């Protein structure tokens, strides 16, 4: 995944096609990756346009429809294709709305963490000295905490809620892009074009953001996608434990948790939201794998 160490790649990308673009073209040539990218994009569209797509109000209870089975089973009805939950709320609509929580939290955490991680990693890797010592120590310390327990402890203090969950996950998440970027920066800052920029009198900030950053985008993108899949599972786990966004807001993890007590007979309550999590996370993981393969110089011809 270290595109910069590719011996074949020119240190300065030729005009017209940068290394990053060439990598993206390679990625786009994989049918499998594009298929799962389409599913991922489908989920994003579903999240954005949830109010127009969802057939019913996700929070409207109706005790007459309590535990109604999916349409193809006896007692089912195509108006409520995946059946209804214990309060008679439409499961399909709740899954559609639940994608908003998963995708929004996943994207927000990764955005915050990647921004902080990239800046900290660039600073540590390029400026070195005490900046590197301070950042690397902090990274070591935060890496000492298992992820979920750290997030749980923070939420226990701050209380559940959208903003608190994002913060609780981002507090530790930035460490991962930071380590990657630091390593890449250390390797990149020795390459001629960076030295040339330095010789021409470019300032540190300019070198970091204009010369180094564009050349380490590939590994950053790979790490962000694979971590996003991970963060979505973590958010679902928190919701499952009752520490995620609070009811009545639909989230996939809490839907699985709510359906648990009915799983002996009404299996659909937990099964469908679980499939949604699996499908989204799986798609992102395949896309990430495709990106990694495309960016890995060993796979290039």
């Amino acid at each position, binding site marked *: 995944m270290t595109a910069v160490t590719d011996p074949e790649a020119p240190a300065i990308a030729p005009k017209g096609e940068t290394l990053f673009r060439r990598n993206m073209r390679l990625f786009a040539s994989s049918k499998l990756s594009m298929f799962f990218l389409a599913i991922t994009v489908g989920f994003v569209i579903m999240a954005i346009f949830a109010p127009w797509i969802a057939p019913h109000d996700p929070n409207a209870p109706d005790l007459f429809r309590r535990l109604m089975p999916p349409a193809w089973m006896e007692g089912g009805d195509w108006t409520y294709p995946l059946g209804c939950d214990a309060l008679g709320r439409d499961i399909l609509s709740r899954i559609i709305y639940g994608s908003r929580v998963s995708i929004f939290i996943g994207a927000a955490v990764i955005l915050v963490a990647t921004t902080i991680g990239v800046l900290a990693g660039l600073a540590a890797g390029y400026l070195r000295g005490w900046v590197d010592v301070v950042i690397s120590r902090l990274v070591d*310390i935060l*890496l000492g905490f*298992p992820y979920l327990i750290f997030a749980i402890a923070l939420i*226990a203090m701050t209380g559940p809620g959208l903003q608190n969950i994002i913060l609780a996950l981002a507090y530790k998440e930035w460490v991962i892009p930071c380590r990657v970027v630091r390593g890449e920066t250390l390797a990149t800052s020795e390459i001629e074009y960076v030295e040339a920029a330095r010789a021409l009198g470019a300032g540190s900030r300019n070198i970091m953001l204009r010369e180094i950053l564009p050349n380490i985008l590939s590994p950053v993108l790979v790490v962000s996608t694979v971590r996003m899949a991970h963060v979505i599972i973590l958010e679902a786990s928190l919701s499952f434990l009752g520490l995620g966004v609070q009811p009545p807001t639909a989230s996939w993890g809490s839907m699985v*948790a709510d359906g*648990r007590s009915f799983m002996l007979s009404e299996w659909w309550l937990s099964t469908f939201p*679980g499939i949604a999590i699996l499908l989204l996370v799986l798609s992102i*993981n395949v896309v990430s794998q495709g990106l990694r393969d495309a960016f890995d110089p060993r796979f290039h011809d």
Partner: protein
Amino acid sequence: MSLGKLVERLLQLIPVLLGVSVIVFVMMLFTPGDPVEIMLGDQHVTEELEQAMRRDMGLDLPPHERFFKFLGNALQGDFGLSYYHRQPVADVIASRLPATIELSLAALIFALCVSIPLGVLAAVKKNSILDRIATVTSLFGVSMPGFWFGILLILFFSVTLRWLPVSGNAGFSSEVEPITHLLLVDSLLRGRPDAFWDALRHIILPAITLGLPMASILMRVTRASMLDVLDRDYITFAEAKGLRRTKILVKHALKNALIPTVTVAAIETGSLLGGNMVVETVFGWPGLGRLVVESIFVRNYPLIQAAVLFYAVTYVMLNFAADILYTVLNPRVRL
């Protein structure tokens, strides 16, 4: 690895562990609510008694003094009182720990037993159907939310087939007098095959649920490193000498290919601890993870903080062990 290097590495742990305790302490400072009030609950006491309790718990001291007191106490295994259990936190944690250790070990064993043979086979028969299946399975393994997978397993094996119990770690009739506090070990030591069988039936599903992501990761690592090793000159040489294929695989290739697997396994054992909260909740496993989750809802902060500190110290130590293990196993790395 020389003793000097080992000591140096051990000393490097000190700033990390100190930093970890500072973070846990800061969490404690910012915890909402007054510990004395939470502890008293609905009981009404005089102002003097409240002040006395506050002094007793060291809450009247300035933050830095409180930190050193907290650190000193923690080093002696004193984490204060659990609000909820009205027992020392350390005792409550100690009583729940064996179940968590047993489950983590079982998950580790499951992950190793599945991932190593599969990874080796996938590498040896690269691009075969088996390789494809293994790759796809491992992709599912890392994408599967543990809580949901656990529920599916219960639904299938416990509810539909009725082969395995739904929750808990032992039936009533299979109580054995503790020696190690690990049920599987104790029941064997006490010569109670019935209790062993019972404990085994209880642990299978949670161990698989907890171990699945780790098995997937280890499978990939084993496959990749086995492919790498099979490409080496000494394997070609061994083949040229006319040695039998299985002998080459086991004696020459596997020994070297397992170095990364063992290292990653040591690191991932830390993640098993982190995943325990979810799996223990799903399976009603009486371990530390479920205790932490329960403690959140009753605002039992001292217990949460002690558990976070405990998890972090264990995690740091496991990573340290993984580092040492890697150095010892891999003579090319001289640190």
